[in-house]
């Protein structure tokens, strides 16, 4: 049934990466991105590739899950590859009519495509190894550390969204069936009639969402909610030796990439 679908694609596990503090993982992803963008030649890419592959191995997340995350991007990947391949000026290695491939183009194309693939791999690894709740907590605390003023509100919104998505999916299914029982047809006709046929679904869904929001707001107030001030959290995020080790590893990666880029 629809409600069984889990949000975020968290894959439970106890690997090194699973056990890291969410804040560590979020910051590490940014450091990794910096390293990725710093790399510009084959040595740099070799280092990043080895690192990325080892991370996926360490996380014990099935490769299939990673590939699933990359698959929807194939058009963008093909475009990136194609544009660089055919439009970069340089030493021609292959030509047919006005279509030509240059050595520089090939290089750029491969690098850019790899950059995208690695970017998606590492961010999926973050969501695949972190529960949505831990991720929310992590984002809240990272935003707070950056003095973003609405950090608490953003995190609360994410928490409530996580809580209500399954409920709303269930409700959508129910309203749809109720209207079908009255002869509604959601999947035939042209675009206009299909869009129109959604009104009997969307109106009740919006109304009930507003009602829910209203009741939830009242229930929260009744439980003394008054925004982020003076609020404590039961779960305190805790950095362990593991986290420091992870920081060191990612820092080393970044420095290596920078050295390769600028001094070698």
């Amino acid at each position, binding site marked *: *049934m629809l409600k*069984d679908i889990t949000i975020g694609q968290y894959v439970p596990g106890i690997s090194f990466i699973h056990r890291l503090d969410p804040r560590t993982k979020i910051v590490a992803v940014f450091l990794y991105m910096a390293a990725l963008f710093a790399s510009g030649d084959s040595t740099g890419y070799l280092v990043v590739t080895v690192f990325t592959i080892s991370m996926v191995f360490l996380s014990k997340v099935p490769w299939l899950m990673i590939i699933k995350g990359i698959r929807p991007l194939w058009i963008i990947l093909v475009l990136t590859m194609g544009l660089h391949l055919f439009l970069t000026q340089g030493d021609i290695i292959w030509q047919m009519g006005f279509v030509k491939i240059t050595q520089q183009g090939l290089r750029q194309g491969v690098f850019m495509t790899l950059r995208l693939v690695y970017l998606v791999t590492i961010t999926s690894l973050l969501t695949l190894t972190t529960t949505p709740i831990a991720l929310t907590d992590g984002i809240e605390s990272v935003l707070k550390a950056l003095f973003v003023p609405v950090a608490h509100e953003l995190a609360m919104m994410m928490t409530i969204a996580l809580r209500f998505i399954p409920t709303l999916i269930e*409700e959508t299914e*129910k*309203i749809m*069936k*109720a*209207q*079908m*029982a*009255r*002869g*509604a*047809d959601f999947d035939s006709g042209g675009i206009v009639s299909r869009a129109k046929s959604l*009104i*009997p679904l969307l*109106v*009740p869904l919006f*109304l*009930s969402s507003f009602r829910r929001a209203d009741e939830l707001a009242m229930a929260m107030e009744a439980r003394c909610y008054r925004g982020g001030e003076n609020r404590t959290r039961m779960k305190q995020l805790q950095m362990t030796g593991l986290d420091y080790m992870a920081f060191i590893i990612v820092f080393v990666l970044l420095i290596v990439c920078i050295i390769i880029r600028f001094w070698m």
Partner: protein
Amino acid sequence: MSIVLTGVSHTYSPNSPYEMKAIKNIDLEITEGEIIGLIGHTGSGKSTLIQHFNGLLKPTEGRVLVDGVDIVKKGVKLKDIRKKVGLVFQYPEHQLFEETVYKDIAFGPKNIGLDQEKTKSRVRKAMKMVDLDYAKYRDISPFTLSGGEKRRVALAGVLAMQPKYLVLDEPTAGLDPRGRDEILRHVTELHRRENMTIVIVSHSMDDIARLVDRLIVINQGELVYNDRTRECFAQYEELKRIGLDVPTMTALMLRLAEKGWPVRTDILTIKEAKEEILRVVRGGAADA
């Protein structure tokens, strides 16, 4: 004419980690003119079962025939099935969406392609069946109505399809005593006056006891009983085992019988209980 289920099973998300067999090998016949109760605790498969009656769900095994027509046969229009079998979901007022009561009730008739005249007469008739004054309610927004009124509008929305069979999933849930009585009175009248075939899902054994002729009991997706109401409630021990109650009056008679009173235990309603107690008390007095 009838709805006939033969060997119906339904499995959700087959061949996935979430696979769940909600109903198993159900054989059932609902004959025209009956009023039937369907009981079973939450998660027993009641909702899954009733959605087979009008083809909202298709059996993963077995067959469903509505007036002799197999609902999954090629060329069968599900709209035609849904015209015949009206289904009122739990909290049906949550499906209201139009600006006026009239428009909302007219949604069903319009979907089945009726012209304005016919639609109008259907809306009128449906509103009358649930005691909503046509002139008074026609043009007002359903969202300004009270809970009980909203529910009657939603019920009228299904009645406007003029179904032969009407299936109601807990029609009284969340209403106050007056609202409950009103809805149940309408249901009884639909059966008596309009000669509609009724299947009513309820958690209230007391309501079931005074309303229905026949009772279907399901547990963990399986049909446990399918018999006259009195006979079903006579199986109180088995019902208790699967977590279902018997009507209060039946329970009272059972306790009295346990205490050695010579009472009949197949009592369902307050009226029957009163007569039975008086019979025993007065009979006892006559003996003494």
